[in-house]
């Protein structure tokens, strides 16, 4: 383990490197600045910091990893997409064949592969196990037919991991299979879905005789549900890395309020606003303290337990309250939807406000997470 002094030196080194190398604005996935930044991270060897060194990881200690992530967050420097780095990557390391590891893993940090997630279907939302997209093994290939929806950013991705039905059993969880699919083929058709924020973050994906070789089976045939469950815990942790999904910085609300005078009175000094911010700050502080606990458990080699579901549930709900407070502070200006002046990569508060709802629905809605905690942690009986 490093001494405090060594860790502090490491922090300064990371901070300086980010300051010297990060483009001024790094946009969301799909924008040119995102790819530019991803390539810089890759060349430094910091694209997949948490991975084992043999697959391109940075070889950081748990403490260094935390510091690295803190510095990235502080500098508004996004990490590479969680779907590849935190979801399918680690899953392939754990359950993949040697061929899968060798072929797929290096292509994630090098930006050759971007992965999308094909889980939900039009009739399959929170009740994920009821999915009906079907795959039939023909010779050495699976032939896939059906529809996937809410495939985030699929229009910018060339790979998809998906759940398909290979058997209809007594239990809907049985007979689900986990497949990897190259989406650059005639059997796959993508239709971006326009969202309430006005942009397309999600796609509907039509699979008409899409084909994938048998070597792209992850885990065992008909046993994909177990594979998917392991993945969802990682997805929940991944959401917390995205500032857009857990509410804007509270300082932004204060900065805005400082400039507002309402009927002769400074909004910043309004005691009612101050009290609202106090409560939000306290709630946020308590999530920060909880993260400290999670990090401490991780660095002692303990698995993050229920805290992952808890952190996702609480932080994303809090994010909505924070954004709503910002909207209130902005008053009439909060209704502005598309501001001509805002940079291409920036989102207006009104769109962030709407986008935050994605966080309490995706990766297990708040209600599903409450079901999971109630059953697995509190041990309350099922119906």
């Amino acid at each position: 383990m490093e001494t405090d002094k060594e860790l502090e030196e490491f922090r300064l080194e990371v901070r300086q490197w980010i300051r010297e190398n990060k483009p001024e604005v790094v946009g969301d996935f799909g924008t040119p600045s995102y790819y530019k930044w991803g390539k810089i991270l890759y060349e430094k060897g910091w694209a997949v910091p948490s991975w084992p060194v043999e697959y391109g990881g940075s070889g950081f200690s748990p403490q260094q990893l935390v510091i690295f992530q803190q510095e990235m967050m502080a500098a508004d420097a996004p990490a590479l997409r969680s779907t590849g780095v935190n979801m399918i990557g680690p899953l392939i390391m754990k359950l993949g064949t040697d061929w899968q590891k060798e072929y797929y893993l290096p292509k994630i940090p090098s930006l050759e592969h971007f992965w999308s997630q094909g889980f939900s279907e039009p009739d399959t939302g929170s009740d994920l196990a009821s999915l009906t997209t079907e795959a039939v093994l023909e010779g050495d290939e699976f032939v896939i037919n059906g529809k996937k929806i809410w495939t985030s950013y699929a229009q910018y991705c060339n790979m998809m991991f998906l759940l398909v039905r290979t058997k209809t059993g007594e239990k809907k969880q049985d007979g689900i299979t986990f497949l990897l699919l190259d989406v650059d083929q005639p059997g796959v058709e993508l239709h971006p879905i326009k969202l309430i924020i006005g942009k397309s973050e999600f796609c509907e994906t039509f699979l008409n005789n899409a084909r994938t070789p048998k070597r792209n089976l992850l885990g065992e045939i008909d046993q994909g549900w177990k594979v998917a469950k392991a993945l969802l815990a990682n997805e929940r942790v991944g959401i917390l890395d995205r500032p857009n999904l857990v509410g804007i910085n509270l300082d932004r609300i204060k900065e805005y309020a400082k400039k507002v005078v309402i009927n002769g009175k400074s909004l910043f000094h309004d005691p009612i606003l101050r009290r609202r911010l106090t409560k939000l700050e306290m709630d946020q502080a308590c999530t920060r303290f909880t993260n400290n606990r999670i990090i401490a458990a991780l660095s002692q080699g303990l698995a993050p337990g229920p805290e992952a579901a808890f952190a996702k549930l609480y932080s994303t709900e809090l994010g909505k309250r924070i954004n709503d407070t910002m909207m209130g502070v902005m008053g009439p200006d909060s209704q502005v939807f598309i501001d001509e002046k805002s940079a291409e990569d920036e989102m207006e508060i009104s769109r962030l406000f709407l986008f935050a709802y994605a966080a309490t629905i995706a990766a297990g809605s708040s209600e599903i997470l409450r079901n999971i905690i109630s059953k697995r942690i509190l041990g309350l009986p099922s119906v």
Partner: protein
Amino acid sequence: MSYGLTKEEELLKSSVADFVRQEQSLERIRELREDEWGFSRDIWMKMAELGWFGLFFPEEWGGFDGTFKELVIVMEELGKGLMPEPFISTILVSGNSILLGGSEEFKNEILPEMIEGNLIMAGGFAEMQSRYYLNDVCTVAKEKNDDFFVSGTKTFVEAANSADKFIISARTSGGQYDDCGITVFLIDAESDGVSLSPVITMDGIKRFHVAFDNVKVGADKILGEKDEGYQLIKEVVSRSTVGLIGEMLGGMEQAFDIVIKYLKQRIQFGRPIGSFQALQHRCVDMWMEIELSRSAVLETALQFDTNADSREITLSIAKARCSNAYKHIGSEGIQMHGAIGLTDECDIGLFLKRAKVAEVTFGDADYHYERYERLTSAMN
């Protein structure tokens, strides 16, 4: 400094937990309502023998130089059993007053006796009008020759009828709300002019309004400096609050445990009521409040141990959270029990009552929001 527990801390936690299980049944809380002292001297002495009173005091007076983290570990376990012994009033409030404000002579005379369990003290800083503001002091101490004459009333003083000594704040100069001009005195309980009126409070713990009518106190009984007592009692109350939030955390955990057990066992409409989603989701919200409280309590203790700049701010975050959370668990707990939850024989009510008293001890959530705002604007 670490969030996880060391082996020694685990050991301390389990030894307190074992003790509480052996010595305390919640039935004792009901029996002690009729008791003159409101707690057991026998258990008090056993706690002393186990060394818990000295845990947070320096070795030279028989203590063990413990940490705030150890303090909250002990308090959490005591809180699970709703232990009515006056740990906070005697050990935390009074003990810290002596430690931080007493002369060497006082420390030598009092601390070892207190640590061994032979001396019970009661701290009284609150008054009828002061609510949670320690600077609001109307009790006066008039100086005549080398003595002071104290007049006024201190409210809700715990264990006052069993106390050998009182530690109180009184005004020696300045106006009612001034920070300056407050002096802390150590007063023998048997002094002429001291009278107690019992107040029956919700949690069953014995509390008294203690009136001082021209009580003579020597100038040598001042803790800290004359007129400079405000800083002392602020520090004493902060340290004591760290203990209190530990206790509150334990209380809410135990109350929640009782609720979950009941939901699993109570059958209505042919199935356990814990299988109803309307209750399950509310239970998850209760559980989250406990986990957030746990994080805040632990963080506060660690910040007090390292004397971090933000420790007082964090303390207010934690006390506000615990005040709301403990009350929430108790209140939801009664509702989920249904009518049986309203009966005295059902344990859940004991926890709501303790939660309500703990809430208004050392400041409720509204007070701590305001305190947080004061402290953070001072820092900016």
